[in-house]
């Protein structure tokens, strides 16, 4: 695979590989195969690929029906349309009965840049986290996205996978052992702990270099399993870094990773916490770089926030 690739493509590469041995795996899409990345599955297994047309609610309902007769459906659309528009069908049709349906939301965050705020989903993490019976996964790079495809399949029950449009350098390996429900410590450091998910983990990884040049040793913890949340793993990692923690997420801090980390630490003493996140506002059109800069989704901002935290 290319060294720099979006998770939306890595995920389906992993799923195509897995589906060779699992004829029960089906993929559904709502007319966005090339956008979500599910086109790879369509090419590999056309007879197991179902395009329901532009009808996300029905796509989720049909997926629920497929799972009821023994299939394992992965249904995809842009995050805002599947996690947003189809929310209530995911709730009552899938999660309420704990059906084995996988929901793939692509273009999580603001990197659907040119399309504007209507297509940029900052709420999906919060929405999906709030659902009983739901597992929420987010790979940080395309290598991890391949592994996440297998993990999502192995979990018997509803899973939401958030993928991203933005191609990032791989920082994890295909040989990694992905531990479901556990934090993934990517680097150790005593001065502060950076907790990140999705492409923010890649940006934070780049920020480590800036911090190093400034004499700061940060640990980097990747959260691929957003729910169930590894509270103990977070507490341990933050403790090891002197109680300083910077949370980085490309989603609304309201109900997102920032709140998940903060709530894990409420009973701990001596915590200093900061965040790089979408500050409860919608996205808008712009060039990707320009937009990320405007919303503070950059390695420079992560490093600046980290240094500020170290001075507190």
């Amino acid at each position, binding site marked *: 695979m290319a060294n720099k690739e979006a998770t939306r493509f890595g995920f389906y590469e992993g799923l195509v590989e897995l589906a060779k041995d699992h004829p029960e795996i*089906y993929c559904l899409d709502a007319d966005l195969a090339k956008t979500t990345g599910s086109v790879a599955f369509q090419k590999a297994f056309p*007879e*197991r690929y*179902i395009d*329901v*047309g532009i*009808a996300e*609610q*029905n796509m*989720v*309902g*049909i*997926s*629920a*029906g*497929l*799972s*009821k*007769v*023994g*299939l394992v459906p992965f249904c995809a659309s842009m995050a805002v349309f599947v996690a947003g528009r189809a929310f*209530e*069908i995911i709730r*009552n*049709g899938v999660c*309420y*009965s*704990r059906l084995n349906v996988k929901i793939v939301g692509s273009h999580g965050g603001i990197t659907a840049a040119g399309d504007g705020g209507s297509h940029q989903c900052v709420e999906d993490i919060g929405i999906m986290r709030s659902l009983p019976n739901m597992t929420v996964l987010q790979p940080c790079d395309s290598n991890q996205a391949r592994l996440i495809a297998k993990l999502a399949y192995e979990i018997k029950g509803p899973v939401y996978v958030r993928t991203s449009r933005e191609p990032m350098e791989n920082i994890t390996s295909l040989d990694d052992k992905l531990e479901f429900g556990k934090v993934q410590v990517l680097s150790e450091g005593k001065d502060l702990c950076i907790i990140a998910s999705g492409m923010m983990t890649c940006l934070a990884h780049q920020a480590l270099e800036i911090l190093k040049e400034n004499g700061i040793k940060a640990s980097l913890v990747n959260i691929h399993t957003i729910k169930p949340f590894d509270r103990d793993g977070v507490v341990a990692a933050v403790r090891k870094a002197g109680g300083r923690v910077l949370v980085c997420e490309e989603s609304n801090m309201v109900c997102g990773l920032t709140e998940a980390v903060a709530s894990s630490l409420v009973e701990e003493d001596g915590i200093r916490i900061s965040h790089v996140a979408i500050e409860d506002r919608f996205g808008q059109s712009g060039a990707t770089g320009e937009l990320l800069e405007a919303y503070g989704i950059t390695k420079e901002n992560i490093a600046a926030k980290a240094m500020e935290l170290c001075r507190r």
Partner: protein
Amino acid sequence: MRDPDFLENKARQLRIDTLDMILKAGSGHVGGSFSIAELLVALYYDKMNLGKGASDPDRDRFVLSKGHANPILYAVLMDIGFAPKEAKDTLRRYGSPFQGHPDSTKCPGLDCSTGSLGQGLSIATGMALGLKKQGRPGHVYVITGDGELQEGICWEAFMAANAFKLDNLTVIIDRNRLQLSAPTEVTNPLDSIEDKLRSFNFAVDSIDGHDFEQIFGALDKKYEGKPHCIVANTIKGMGVSFMENGVKWHGALPAGDEIAEAYRELGASYGK
């Protein structure tokens, strides 16, 4: 079993059981349960292949998309031995398999959780598609309300059923012409449902939904390569004269003298 006496007695008994359960619970949907009594009898006591029982993966499936009419479905599931008879008095109670709206994780033999209108139709479409994709037997029957068709997802599902040529799917529309607050034609007109479904390329039959001969006449029809829709013209509250065609009997319970009168009209005595 198509013996007219058997069928009519079953429908009568199911209405009595439904009234028992709803009165015991103190709430529930009588009118919409009574309108589908004959349809459920035709399906569960004759038309559907129930195979080796509730857990047989190759039996026919039934989805009650108008989930609020579940008391009468529970009455069926108890009677055919899928759901526990001893739970009859627990409708809507804590810990009961008979939740206020159908929960398939709690009630054995219930093929789908429903209650959110329109969703059951979509899931039934997926079940039929999944069976077809796997080349498996099993026909999927679904009953929707008529007011329910105001939900957009129903029309997404109708389009998909046509696109996938689901001739293993039968959609029965309980056309009682009343929704919770008012007649459907006042709130958001649906006529002609038959024309709408035909334009979605369904094979459509329009029948009297309380007449067994007409119900079986429609259920027995086979349409190759097309989904089948039966518009069952029914009477909400059918079987108890003061409830029939009354909009209040969507969710209201009989009280005082009405209770004995309802049982009397159903051929039973209150409390027996």
